[in-house]
């Protein structure tokens, strides 16, 4: 019964947020963007609203959160009641506060990692396509070799060697994901380098950096942006998985993955508290996927 009820409530919320977000976006969009938002599917407007909400919570975390991030406030595993609306965790810290700070830490670290992976991967990929020859061959074969090992397994291997800390976590995940970005950036750039305007730019004597930044990157932006969304999901999920396994972000930093791990015992007593941080992760990835799906659909020009 409760399951059915929660599904109904969830669907109702989804439609409400979706419709409201679409209406608001349409009202405030500049005139030439209005049709974009009018034809937007509900899933995409719901996704956009959720992403904006997460950004808001992450930026204003200290103002929203009722307590300090790692403040021990009372008995452990308190039930859901005022003043701890979502109870306390196994050390007696306020669950709601840690969920709010988690938005900042988990999402922030995932975003930084994705940005790093993108910067390195797309630069190397475009560079390889532009220079070609042996550089392209060597880089591509090297990336192929690294990609033959499953990402999670390779990250675990690297974390064993370099030890587990937030910095190594960011570097390791960024390195593993940069190989995937490299692949895409190289194949996109390969289609662009052969065009006439690149030839012209070369004859004008434009340098490598300028060629990449001013000639190729603007033309490769659409697929790269969509890929950024998907990559973010992957990075976010793998960081959460590693934190959940106890190998990622460490306490006392509030982080959704390790919060699930710390409070997992509650689930066997029928308390859904550990599902909240896991759900927060799931909701954000779903939202990003919805928006990316819409963008890809638009970019491909498909009208079913």
């Amino acid at each position: 019964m409760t399951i059915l009820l929660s599904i109904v409530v969830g669907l109702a919320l989804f439609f409400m947020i979706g419709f409201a977000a679409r209406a608001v976006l349409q009202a405030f969009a500049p005139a030439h963007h209005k049709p974009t938002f009018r034809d937007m599917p509900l899933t995409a407007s719901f996704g956009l609203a959720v992403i904006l909400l997460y950004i808001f919570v992450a930026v204003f975390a200290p103002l929203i959160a009722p307590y300090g991030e790692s403040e021990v406030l009372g008995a452990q595993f308190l039930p859901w009641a005022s003043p701890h609306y979502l109870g306390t965790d196994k050390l007696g810290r306020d669950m709601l506060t840690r969920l709010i700070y988690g938005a900042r830490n988990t999402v922030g670290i995932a975003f930084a990692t994705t940005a790093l992976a993108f910067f390195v991967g797309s630069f190397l990929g475009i560079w390889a396509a532009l220079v070609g020859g042996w550089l392209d061959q060597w880089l591509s074969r090297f990336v192929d070799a690294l990609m033959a090992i499953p990402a999670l397994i390779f990250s675990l291997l690297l974390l064993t060697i370099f030890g587990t800390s937030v910095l190594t976590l960011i570097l390791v995940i960024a390195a593993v994901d940069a190989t995937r970005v490299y692949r895409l950036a190289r194949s996109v750039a390969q289609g662009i380098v052969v065009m006439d305007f690149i030839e012209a730019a070369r004859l004008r004597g434009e340098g490598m950096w300028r060629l990449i930044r001013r000639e190729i990157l603007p033309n490769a932006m659409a697929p790269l942006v969509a890929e950024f969304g998907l990559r973010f999901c992957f990075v976010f999920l793998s960081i959460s998985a590693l934190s959940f396994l106890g190998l990622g972000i460490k306490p006392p930093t509030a982080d959704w993955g390790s919060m699930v791990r710390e409070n997992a015992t509650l689930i066997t007593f029928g308390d859904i508290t550990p599902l909240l941080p896991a759900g927060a992760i799931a909701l954000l990835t779903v939202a990003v996927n919805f928006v990316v799906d819409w963008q890809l659909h638009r970019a491909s020009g498909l009208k079913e």
Partner: protein
Amino acid sequence: MIGQRLLLGVLTLFIISVVIFGATELLPGDLARELLGQSATEETLAALREQLGLNDPAPLRYWNWLAGVLQGDFGMSMATQKPISELVGARLGNTLFLALYAAALAVPFALLLGVLAALWRNSIFDRASNALALTAISFPEFFVAYTLIFWLAQSGLFPSMVRITGSTTTGDLLYMAFLPALTLTLVVTAHMMRMTRAAIINLLASPYIEMARLKGMSPIRVVLRHAVPNALAPIINVVALNLAYLITGVVVVEVVFVYPGLGQLMIDAVSNRDIAVVQAIALIFASAYVLLNLLADVLSTIINPRLMHRK
């Protein structure tokens, strides 16, 4: 064609073993000091170097390691002081069982859903299953796992932990491992289903399908007899890719359900920084991944006559 692909597979396996072994060389300092910490005395460091064989040059160490691995000897675990093959041996079977169990549930389910979604495309069923699939792809495994525990294990329907003892029969195991297998199924089904649907819909626009329709065939027959055989190659590829994904997916799921498999062992080894064990398990997982991809390529070549007789 196939011989060439097999050779490439062997080469990939070799390169993977080099990468997995060579990763330790990336460390700027000394592996022994890194593992023992700054406070270690010179004697213990020397003893550990001797035990790990760090005094030999890297190529020689790699050769010894590879020769051992090929004979089933992965060396000693530092944390437990047991031979790794003993630790791995018992658990490899468990992990394979879980992966196969999940595959047996997921593959037929995903293919059925994919074919139905293609058959009734743009219907409510298609849209709903598409949105659900997109949602399922984005869920972290542990969220799915704990939700299932909350719904199905709370009421005592299924156990939330897997304990394998000497007297466990296959029937018991199937029952105990149902929730972990279901978790994995839900995680991989979505992707397989979407790809199956896309592969079939791609073909539905071709002239020979229109011909079949004009002959008055029923839509089901058109899809099953005419579209599916030609869509098999991409479908086999995506099935293999997802089975390969299962191999890494088991790591998280095994930890949630306390399932005694390789994933658990690997996580313990990573937190103990037991590098030899991690290398051994990484090699096993990576080889399985490569072999599955190889199998997919070979299979899709065999079923496609045009690829078999390429000029």
